[in-house]
C-alpha cells in the first residue's frame, strides 16, 4: 500500500522498494511510501521496525541494498546529489548525537561554517536558539546538558540552515512531558512551512503532530495513508494493534 500521489501537492520524499540487508538479516524489505510537500508525516513502528534504517537511507548516510529513494528530487545515494540535498535537508539522527566537548554555541558555529552560512551565521543561530529555547545553556559543554537540552540542541542544528525538509529520528525520545509538549508545538509550527518526516513508536505522538502516517513492522510496510484513513473504524491505538496483528498473522 502506498500513499496516493494524485494530490495537487508534489511528492517531496519518495521511497520505492527499499530493502536493506545486513548479511542474511533484512532490516528493510521492499518498503515504498511517499510524503507530500508541506505535510508532517509520522514514521510509526515498534523498535527494530526499520525506521532509523530508512531515515539513514533517505539522508544518504547508508545505501539501500536495493530500491531507490528521492528527497526533493535528489538521489541520496549519489555522492554529488547527496551534497546538494544536505544543503536543503535538516536531520536529527537517533539519540541526537553531538560533540560532547563543545558548547551548543561552538557546535552551531562549527555546523554553520560547514554549511557555508557566512555572514548570516549569527542571525541563523539567534533564530534557532529562540525556536528551541536553548539560550540559557549556550556556553555549557554538551556533556553537561540534560538529555532534554541535548535533544533541543540537536533540533537547533537540524534547523540552522532553515531547510525545506526535516527528517527527525525520534525527536521526543528521552524528554519529560513538558519538553515533549514544547517539541511537538515546535514541530506543528514548523510543519506549516516545511515537509517533515519524524519517526516515533509513541502512538499519541502521531495524533499530536502528524497528518500522514507510514507504519512499518519488522522491516515491512504495514500501512501508508492519512491519519484519518488510519483511524477509520477505531482509535489510532486500536488500528495500530489490529494492523500489526494482521501483519503477524500474514507472516
Amino acid at each position, binding site marked *: 500500500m502506498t500513499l496516493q500521489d494524485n494530490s495537487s501537492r508534489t511528492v517531496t520524499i519518495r521511497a520505492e522498494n527499499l530493502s536493506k540487508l545486513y548479511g542474511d538479516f533484512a532490516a528493510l524489505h521492499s518498503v515504498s511510501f511517499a510524503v507530500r510537500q508541506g505535510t508532517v508525516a509520522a514514521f510509526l513502528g515498534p523498535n527494530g521496525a526499520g525506521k532509523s534504517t530508512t531515515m539513514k537511507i533517505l539522508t544518504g*548516510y547508508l545505501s539501500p541494498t536495493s530500491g531507490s529513494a528521492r528527497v526533493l528530487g535528489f538521489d541520496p*545515494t549519489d555522492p554529488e546529489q547527496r551534497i546538494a540535498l*544536505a*544543503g536543503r535537508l535538516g536531520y536529527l539522527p537517533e539519540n541526537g*548525537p*553531538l*560533540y560532547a566537548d563543545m558548547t551548543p554555541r561552538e557546535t552551531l558555529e562549527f555546523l554553520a*561554517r*560547514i554549511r*557555508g552560512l557566512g555572514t548570516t551565521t549569527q542571525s541563523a543561530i539567534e533564530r534557532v536558539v529562540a525556536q528551541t529555547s536553548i539560550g540559557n545553556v549556550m556556553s555549557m559543554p554538551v556533556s553537561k546538558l540534560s538529555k532534554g537540552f541535548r535533544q533541543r540542541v540537536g533540533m537547533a542544528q537540524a534547523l540552522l540552515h532553515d531547510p525545506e525538509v526535516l527528517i527527525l529520528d525520534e525527536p521526543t525520545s528521552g524528554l519529560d512531558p513538558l519538553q515533549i509538549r514544547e517539541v511537538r508545538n515546535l514541530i506543528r509550527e514548523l510543519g506549516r512551512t516545511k515537509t517533515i518526516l519524524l519517526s516515533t513508536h509513541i502512538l499519541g505522538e502521531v495524533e499530536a503532530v502528524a497528518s500522514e502516517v507510514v507504519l512499518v513492522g519488522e522491516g515491512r510496510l504495514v500501512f501508508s495513508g492519512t491519519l484519518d484513513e488510519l483511524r477509520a473504524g477505531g482509535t489510532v491505538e486500536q488500528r495500530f494493534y489490529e494492523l500489526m496483528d494482521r501483519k503477524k498473522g500474514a507472516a
Partner: protein
Amino acid sequence: MPSSSTGTIGAIASKELRAYLGNPTGYVFLTLFIVASAAAAFLTDTFFGRNLADLATLNKWMPAILMFFVPAVTMNLWADERRSGTDELLLTLPVRDTEVVLGKFFGALGVYTVGLLFSLANVLVLVYLGEPDVGLMFATYLGYWLMGAMFVAVGMVGSMFTGNTTVAFILGALGCAALVFAGQAPWASGFIGVVMVGAIAGLAWNVIAGSGKGGGAAAAVAVGVALGLALWLAPVQLRGTDVGEWFVGTFAALGAPAHFESFGEGLVRLGDIAFFVGGAAVALYLCGILISRRHW
C-alpha cells in the same frame, strides 16, 4: 550554499585541533612527547661523547617515539565519532568523505606540528651548548614533520577500523611499527607489502571502474590483501627464487628510518619527500575506503 572544499576541510581541521588542545589529556601526551624527545637527544652518553651540536642521537630514536606518540593523537579521530554516533551527523552534512578524511588529517597534523614546535627546545639546548648548523636543523625538523605526517595518516587508518580508542591506538601503533621496522624485520616488510598490494588493487579498481558508490574498491583492496598474503606466506619457489623472500625484499625499501636518514644529515632529497608524502597519500586513500564502508 554549502561551504567550499577548503572551507569544509578547514572547519573540520580546526575543530579537531581545538578538541585536542582543549583537553588536558592532549597536553599530557604533548608533554610526554617533549620529555621523550629531550631524553633521547641528550640523556645518552653518545651525545656528549660525540661533542657535536646536532640531533643525531634523537634521530635514531625519533621513529620509535613517533610510533607511540602519533597513534595517541590519532586514536580518537574517528573511533570517537563512531562511538558517540556523531559520524552520522557529520556524514549527513554537505561534506564529501574525502573532505572529512582530509579535515581530520590536517587537524591531527596540526596537533603533531604543535608538539614538534615545542620540541624545538632541543635546538635551543644545542644553541646553548654549541653552534648547531641552521640548515642541518631545518632539514632534520622537516624530516621529523614529514615522517610524522605519514604516521598521522597511518594512525588514522587504525582509528577508522574501530569504535574503541584503545584498539585504534594498537592498530595505529602496529601500522607505524611496520614502517619503522621495514627493512630490518621481515615481518614488517611483508606487512607493508601486503598493505601496498591491497592499496594498488583498490586504486586500480578506481581507475578502471571510477569512484562511485558501492564496495567495489573495498573488494579490490581485499583481493589485493589476499594476493599479498599469498605471495608473502606461500612456500613457493619460482625459478629457484623463494617468492616470500622476494616479496619481503621488494618492500624492504619502504622503511621510514632509511628515508629519514638523509634529512638527519642535512640533505633534503626529493625521493625521500615523495616517499613520506606518497605513504601518507596511500594511507589517506585507505581511510577514504574505510569511511565509505557504511554503504556496503
